[in-house]
C-alpha cells in the first residue's frame, strides 16, 4: 500500500489541516462518535477535524456507512459526540444539554435539509405551517413569519399558491425546495445538507444545486453531504473525504477531483460515471480496490 494518508502537497490536503479561524461558522476537532452500548458499541467517527468558514461550501463525500450523515447529525446535536470538540458560531456545544441545544437552535444559526423530501416535511401540515415552524418557535408572530416564509419561497423559485397544499400534493422537487426554504427562514449562518439531491431526478437536481450556489453567493455556509462526487464537485469550495469513519483527504474541490491523493478518493473519482466507461477504467478500479483492501 502506497498511500494511507494524503499529506503529500501542502496546498492540497494534510488531513484535518484546517486551521482554526476565529471567523469560522463551524469548527470540529478530533470528533469521535460511537453508536450502541456494551458489546454492541461501535465507533462510527474517528478523530474527524473540519472547519467551515462563512459563505464557504464544504463537500463531505464517502460511501454508505462511512460516517458522513453521523458527522452532520453530531454537528446538529442529534448524535452525541463521544469525544472531541464542536464549535458552532464561536460557541462550544460539545457538552451541551438538551436545554442549551434548544436555546442555540432557536437562534436559527444552524439548519438542516435531509435527503428524503417526502419525509422531511410533516405530511399532516400544510407547506405554510412547515415553513413558519422555525420562526414560530423563535416567538415570531405567525403573520410576520408567513410574510418572511413567502419571500424565502420565492428564493427557491416556488409560488405562493403552494402554501396551502399538503406535502403529498406537491412534487418531490417542490418538496425539497420547500425544505430548503424552511432552512432559510431563520437566516442561518450554516446549513447541513444531507444528500439533498440524491432522491431527485436530473432536472430537479440541477435546479436545487443552482439554488444552493445562490445561497453560497449570499454568504450562507453549507456542508454538503453526499456519496455523489459529481454533485459535490460542482458546488463545493473544499471537499473532505470520509472512509470508514476517518477523514482520509481534504482540500480545494478542484485539487481533490483532478489529482486525488488517497487511494479511496482515486477510486471515488474513477467510479464517477463517464460516457467512455471502458475496460481500462474497470481494470484501474479493480486495482484501486485491491490496494484499498490491502
Amino acid at each position, binding site marked *: 500500500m502506497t498511500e494511507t494518508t494524503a499529506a503529500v502537497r501542502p496546498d492540497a490536503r494534510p488531513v484535518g489541516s484546517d486551521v482554526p479561524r476565529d471567523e469560522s461558522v463551524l469548527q470540529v476537532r478530533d470528533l469521535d462518535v460511537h453508536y450502541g452500548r456494551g458489546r454492541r458499541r461501535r465507533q462510527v467517527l474517528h478523530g474527524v477535524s473540519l472547519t467551515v468558514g462563512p459563505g464557504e461550501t464544504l463537500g463531505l463525500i464517502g460511501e454508505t456507512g462511512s460516517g458522513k450523515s453521523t458527522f452532520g447529525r453530531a454537528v*446538529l446535536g442529534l448524535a452525541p459526540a463521544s469525544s472531541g470538540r464542536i464549535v458552532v458560531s464561536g460557541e462550544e456545544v460539545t457538552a451541551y444539554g438538551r436545554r442549551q441545544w434548544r436555546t442555540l437552535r432557536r437562534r*436559527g444559526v444552524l439548519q438542516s435539509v435531509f435527503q428524503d423530501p417526502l419525509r422531511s416535511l410533516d405530511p399532516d401540515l400544510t407547506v405554510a405551517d412547515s415553513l413558519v415552524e422555525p420562526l414560530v418557535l423563535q416567538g415570531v408572530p405567525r403573520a410576520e413569519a408567513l410574510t418572511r416564509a413567502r419571500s424565502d419561497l420565492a428564493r427557491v423559485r416556488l409560488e405562493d399558491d403552494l402554501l396551502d397544499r399538503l406535502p403529498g400534493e*406537491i412534487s418531490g422537487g417542490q418538496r425539497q425546495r420547500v425544505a430548503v426554504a424552511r432552512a432559510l427562514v431563520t437566516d442561518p449562518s450554516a446549513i447541513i445538507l444531507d444528500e439533498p439531491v440524491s432522491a431527485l431526478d436530473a432536472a430537479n437536481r440541477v435546479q436545487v444545486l443552482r439554488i444552493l450556489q445562490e445561497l453560497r453567493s449570499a454568504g450562507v455556509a453549507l456542508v454538503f453531504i453526499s456519496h455523489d462526487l459529481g454533485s459535490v464537485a460542482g458546488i463545493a469550495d473544499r471537499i473532505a473525504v470520509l472512509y470508514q469513519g476517518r477523514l482520509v483527504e481534504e482540500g480545494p474541490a478542484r485539487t481533490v477531483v483532478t489529482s486525488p491523493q488517497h487511494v479511496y478518493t482515486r477510486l471515488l473519482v474513477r467510479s464517477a460515471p463517464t460516457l467512455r466507461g471502458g475496460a481500462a477504467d474497470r481494470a484501474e478500479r479493480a486495482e484501486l480496490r485491491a490496494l484499498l483492501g490491502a
Partner: protein
Amino acid sequence: MLRRVLSLPSGRLAIGVLVLVAALAVLGPVLAPQDPLATSGTTLAGVSGSHWLGTDNLGRDVLSRLLAGSRVSVLGSVEVALVALVVGAVPGILSVYLGRTIEWLSLRLADTLVALPFLLFAVAVTALLGNGLTQAMVVTGVLVSPLFYRVSRAATLTVARSAYVESAVVAGASIGWVVRRHVWVKVLPPVAVALAQTVGTGFVIVSSLTFLGIGVQPPAPTWGGLLASDLGFLAYQPWAPLAPALLIMATVWACNVLADVVRDVSGEAGRALVAARGSRPPTHPSTPRTSGGVS
C-alpha cells in the same frame, strides 16, 4: 377527522347508532314509561299494550328497566375507555422521550398488567375498595390500558425518528412541541381505533361484571343485569334476552365499525379514499395543480 368519518356511509351509520345510544343514556330514565324497580303481580308477562317488552320474573316492566339501565351501561363503558386512554396512551407517548429508565419501567409495568388475571383482579380490588361501578370500571380501565400503551408507543416510535421531527428539533422544538405538533396527530388514528374498540369491549365488560354481581348491585337495572336475569327464565320466555342482547350487540357493532372507519380514513391513504369519494378533488404528487417550477 369527524368530517372524513362522516363522508363514509358506514361512518354515518355507526355515528348514528352511537348518538342513539348516547340519547338513551341521557334520556332513558326520563323516557321509562314505568318505575323500573316497581314490582307487580304479573310476572313473566308477554308483550302487551301496557308492557311493550313484557315483564320479568318479579313483574317489573322490561322496557323501563332497559331504558333506565342505559345510563349506567354507557357511562361504565365510556369510563373504562377513558381511564384506559389516560393511563395507557400518555405514558406510551412519553416513554419514547423520557429516557431509558422510564421506558424500561413503563414497559415492565405494562407487561405486568397484561399478565394479571382480569376477573380475579377486578374481584379483589372491588373487595378491597368497595363494590361500586366506579371502582370496578377504574380497575378494568387500568387493566385494559396496556393496549393503549402499546398502540401509542408503537405509533410514536415510527414518528419520533422521522426527518420532519428531527427538522423540528433542529429548529428548537421542545418535547412538548414535538408531541403536540407532530406526534399526537399520527398517534390519534390508532388510538381512536383502540378507543372505539375499548368502548365496545367496555359494554361487554360492564355486562359481564354486572352478570357476576360486581359493580352494580341489584335491583339497579343494567343491560347486562337484564340479560343475566332473563337467561334464568329461558324456559318460560325464550325471547326475553333478545332486547338487551340486541342493544349490547348494536352498540358494540357500532363501536367496531367506527373503529374500522377511523382506521380507513386516517393518514395519506385515508385522505385519498375520502378524496376519491368526492369530498375533495383528487390530487397526486406527480401532477401538481399549479406550476411551481420544474416538477
